[in-house]
């Protein structure tokens, strides 16, 4: 990984020198070994701060939204998940391909700095599996970049093994009452910090239904009904768009298993309209299945 980090810095220097980019989105180190965080280099002087290591987990493609209205030329480092995020943004016409110089890195899976930070801060029961790969990386089906201008590292095998939707099937097999109880208890924990929305690359709407006040579609109480409404509405909007990067679940400060809901939608979209995996390849003009209407679309679930 050290070698990849060196190469990324070399490429970034070259791009700044040649005037090919105005900013370069990557990662930098925090104050402790187990923290690596997103970083936006603005000039060649910043390049030395760029790192790539086993904690470079934060999905960077969401940061492109900060620049969608600008003209900057942007260099960005992507792993498999980040790259699928870029495809989604291109499909949704949130950023122009010509503005991007994409450095793809084949990803062996990452550790989670957020988990490590909480463990080391004395805010959890004590350090358990800080050294292992992040849960989201163990569920990864595409570790290699699907869109790039340059690629680094050797292609990796997906970490996901066994039945991909095992947990979803477990929930599907519950009785409706059990299922309601399960979601009631997990979603009642939600503190409505909207971190799951903010880090989501598929959440790229300019105005969000949850911020609307006139009319206010979803109440602001942290009650079971308002929380359920928030998560169900958000999840429905993710159908056919979630790239399964797992960032929502990773950043959730109250450990809500959000990917269970997203995975259910991935499974359903695939079964009803598929085969389909969001953001797996960029084909100009391609539209995700729930953004098109076909007369033979299945409707027997309505």
């Amino acid at each position, binding site marked *: 990984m050290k070698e990849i980090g060196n190469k990324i810095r070399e490429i970034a220097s070259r791009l700044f020198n040649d005037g090919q980019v105005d900013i370069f989105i990557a990662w930098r180190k*925090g*104050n*402790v070994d187990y*923290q*690596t*965080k*997103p*970083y*936006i280099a603005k000039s060649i002087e910043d390049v030395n701060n760029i790192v790539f290591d086993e904690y470079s987990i*934060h999905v960077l493609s*969401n*940061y492109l939204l*900060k620049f969608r209205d600008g003209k900057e030329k942007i260099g960005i480092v992507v792993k498999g998940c980040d790259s699928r995020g870029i495809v989604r943004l291109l499909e949704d016409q949130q950023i122009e391909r010509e503005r991007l110089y994409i450095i793809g890195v084949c990803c062996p899976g990452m550790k989670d*700095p*957020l988990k490590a*930070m*909480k463990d*080391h*801060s*004395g*805010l*959890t*029961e*004590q350090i358990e599996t800080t050294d292992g790969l992040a849960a989201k990386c163990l569920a990864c089906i595409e570790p290699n970049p699907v869109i790039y201008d340059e690629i680094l590292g050797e292609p990796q095998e997906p970490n996901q093994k066994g039945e991909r939707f095992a947990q979803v099937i477990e929930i599907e097999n519950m009785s409706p009452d059990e299922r309601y109880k399960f979601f009631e208890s*997990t979603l009642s*924990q939600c*503190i*409505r*910090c*909207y*971190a799951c*929305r*903010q*880090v989501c690359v598929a959440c790229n709407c300019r105005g969000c239904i949850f*911020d609307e*006040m006139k009319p*206010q579609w979803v*109440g*602001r*109480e*942290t*009650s079971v009904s308002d929380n359920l409404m928030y998560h169900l509405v958000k999840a429905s909007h993710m159908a056919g768009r979630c790239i399964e990067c797992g*960032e929502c679940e*990773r*950043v959730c*400060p*109250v*450990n809500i298993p959000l990917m269970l809901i997203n995975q259910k939608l991935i499974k359903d979209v695939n079964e009803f309209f598929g085969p389909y995996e969001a953001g797996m390849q960029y084909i100009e003009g391609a539209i995700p299945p729930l953004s098109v209407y076909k007369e033979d679309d299945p409707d027997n679930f309505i």
Partner: protein
Amino acid sequence: MQILDKKRLENALDKLAGTAEVFLPVKKGTAQSGFYSWKTFDKEQDTLMLDALNVLLPPKNVLFPQTEKMYSFKEEGEGIEITGTYEDSKATIIFGTRACDAAAIERFDDVFLTRGYEDTLYKSRRENTVIIANACYEPGQNCFCTSMGINPTDPAAADVIIRDTGDAYIWEALSSKGEKVTGTISGLLESREVKLPELKSFNTIVDYNGVAEKLKNMFEHPIWDRLSQTCQSCGICTYVCPSCYCFDIQVKTRGNQGYRFRCWDSCMYSEYTQMAGGHNPRGDVKERFRNRFLHKLEFFNERYGKPLCTGCGRCIAACPAGISIAEIISEIKEADTDA
């Protein structure tokens, strides 16, 4: 000195819970750790977190619930009748809060009870709450309370201070409220001398001296562009913060009746400053980010003579983008303001 042996802790909690609702640090099942009521403690699934340094969700929810009903009303012809108000005066104990969180309660007292206005909802809860604080001797990686003027071994606002000596707590009542709860468990306390723990050194130290003053001239400083660059504008920092107290007042109606409630709000949300006419004075992340730190480090200090950060380090551990208020204080301290 009075000692509560940890073997008698559960017994003591049961006794205290007979007189009041006791909130204490618990990891609830697979959910996040926070302050939960002892009466909901499930031995099969929950873990008592008194031995951990702290819990991720602060005790602010106990005195200042994330959502609370204020009053309900009913429309009758031309008029409106208030059908209920919701002041909560049940006896409550916050057990095992750390000095950072106790200092945050002290700041809530400043905000809700002083300067000419008393918030009746807060006041009735606060008056009926006893704070049993757990003195801190082993600071965590991101703790910097001493840098913010807080003594971790001598928590503010405490009615009782307990000091963890390993297998027992030293129990010290500091107020008449504290004496009263001590009476509840006096049968479980013993009197003997034990050695006081020693305060270990801090991993994170910042220099806040002069920062509030310096910030007065830093509103337009370029530092805010850089610091806010990776902020994704979620509300984690404000909601895990023990001292952030912003709230919104909203209403729910059904037919001719409804209720008004207040709920935590976050200055990191664009809707927070959205005005009725459509203008938003803090439409950009940078502006919201700057406001949050100016409030914490400058404005609050100007009004109440203390910063609105108590150095608990929760936001540092929980920020998805790894933004650290300790780093920000240091950056402000070092910033060049002559340019």
